């Protein structure tokens, strides 16, 4: 680079024009600040660039630190679900169900099969919802806005299904200890079936726009690759790890909530670059659709009800509360938080949209946890970002960041 400048300055200085020669080895500092259109979520990267290539970066996070773990020490178990909602807010039902499963593990509650199938449907819808955001935003960041608009219309339909099930669109606060708070209504199942009919066409259209698109492929193939061993050392889990070639999926390794009853595949990539992550997420959407269809088919023959028979922990139906004394007492005790949990420590993990979402719960016998720690996948794999962007240009760094699916709520707890 400097030879060109030297030769040009020779030409120009012969015309009595002086050029200030660029000093070698001077790096430019660029602040990819907390507010930036391409970082979805607020975190800061102070990049040092040598010309166009990134040399190093200094990462600052914590711009949305809300102290979830400290709040959780002061809330009874029912009131912690809204907190878990707001961690990975793109797929909040998975967080909710993960929390309930942790509590059920602590209290040794057995959830009936129907409730487990309902939970599976909701979790897979959430996973599809999360991957839809990630892939469409990856399209936006590489310059293609259309995919975003098409897929967000489908996400609106998923929101309508959530509304039928629990009443809320985004921060769902779904589930109860021992099952779900209500069964899926006829309207919900009808909406779900209609969506299952219409969504594959839209997904295929999205794939046609991107997967073999020359411009998109040139932008993302070979960009931000990471090998399987480095990924494991960095604690990667989820689609990012599967794109690097390691087939670790919590749903298969330690099946929870009857996942062993369903047939699905785990897509894995080879090089762990951005294209692999994109394709793995697309494939996971197809596999999730398979699971939802199987669960819907198995729902009529599932055993049990949508909640476990645990009057100590599960709110009795309102009709009973108005008629029977026991139900009234249980209602009062549960709402006022008088139910104590046993002493114990439990770690449970579910396959979140980004990887292994773990809950480490230590209970000292009171009505609130003594310590609750969230093992957040985003926080752990985002550490690998400096290694992934060494030597690439700024536009590649943006694309890598999008494909990692870093969600600020999960990053900063």
């Amino acid at each position, binding site marked *: 680079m400097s030879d060109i400048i030297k030769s040009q300055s020779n030409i120009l200085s012969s015309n009595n024009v002086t050029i200030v020669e660029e000093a070698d080895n001077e790096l430019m500092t660029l602040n990819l600040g907390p507010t930036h259109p391409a970082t979805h979520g607020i975190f800061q990267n102070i990049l040092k660039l040598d010309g166009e290539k990134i040399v190093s970066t200094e990462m600052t996070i914590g711009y949305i630190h809300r102290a979830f773990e400290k709040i959780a020490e002061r809330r009874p178990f029912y009131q912690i679900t809204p907190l878990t909602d707001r961690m990975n807010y793109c797929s909040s039902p998975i967080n909710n169900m993960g929390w309930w499963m942790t509590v059920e593990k602590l209290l040794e509650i057995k959830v009936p099969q129907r409730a487990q199938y309902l939970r599976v449907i909701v979790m897979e819808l959430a996973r599809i919802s999360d991957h839809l955001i990630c892939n469409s935003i990856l399209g936006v960041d590489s310059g293609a806005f259309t995919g975003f608009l098409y897929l967000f219309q489908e996400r609106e339909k998923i929101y309508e299904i959530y509304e039928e099930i629990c009443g809320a669109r985004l921060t769902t606060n779904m589930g109860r200890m021992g099952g779900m708070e209500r069964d899926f209504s006829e309207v919900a199942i009808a909406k779900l079936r209609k969506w299952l009919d219409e969504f594959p066409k839209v997904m295929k259209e999205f794939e046609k726009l991107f997967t073999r698109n020359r411009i998109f492929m040139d932008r993302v193939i070979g960009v931000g690759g990471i090998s399987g061993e480095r990924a494991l050392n960095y*604690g990667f889990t989820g689609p990012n790890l599967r794109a690097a070639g390691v087939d670790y999926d919590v749903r298969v390794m330690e099946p929870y909530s009857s996942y062993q009853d369903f047939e699905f595949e785990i897509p894995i990539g080879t090089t762990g670059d951005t294209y692999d992550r994109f394709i793995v997420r697309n494939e996971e959407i197809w596999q999730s659709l398979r699971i939802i269809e199987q669960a819907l088919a198995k729902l009529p023959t599932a055993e049990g009800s949508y909640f476990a028979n645990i009057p100590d922990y599960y709110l009795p139906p309102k009709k009973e509360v108005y008629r029977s004394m026991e139900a009234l007492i249980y209602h009062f005790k549960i709402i006022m938080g008088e139910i104590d949990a046993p002493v114990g420590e439990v*770690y449970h993990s579910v396959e979140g949209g980004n990887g292994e979402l773990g809950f480490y719960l230590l209970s000292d016998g009171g009505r609130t946890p003594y310590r609750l720690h969230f093992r957040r996948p985003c926080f752990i794999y985002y550490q690998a970002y400096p290694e992934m962007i060494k030597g690439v240009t700024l536009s590649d760094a943006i694309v890598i960041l999008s494909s990692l699916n870093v969600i600020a709520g999960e990053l900063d707890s």
Partner: protein
Amino acid sequence: MIVVSKDIILEELQGKYGEAILEVSEPYNLLTLIITKDKIKNVLEHMFEHKQWQLNFLTDLTAIHFPDLIDNEFCVVYHLHSLVNNFRIRLKVFIPLSNPEIDSATSIWEAANWMERETYDFFGIIFKGHPNLVKILNVDEQDYFPMRREYPLEDQTRRDKDDAMFGR
């Protein structure tokens, strides 16, 4: 053939680090060992390099504050996972408040880097050998460690929330 289980691990570890293992328990089917502070790094390295066990994935690293256990106030908890054998193990180390230092695991796992920074930020536990032990989530000006039990959750200088109305 089962390559790793509670008995196999205990046999080998008790042979090698006998006195360092203070307590063994298995709450909810997760083998939990309490290790002493000086041997924890050796145990972690042993687990990482062991060819059969393959306990080489660091799932989680955090701490708990027990203000009532004098001289054992902090408990640093490691969760390890063997992806090949589908086996999890939890290691706990108790360290005193008067000297909250412990060896860092960053030389073994890169993943431990930010997890230890977060634990330092919340509890004030010093990880010896950590390349960059500074605050990560809280504001830089904060001079106390907020997750310790003695500090309140709410910001005491806020003016608009009336404690009486919020049941505090």
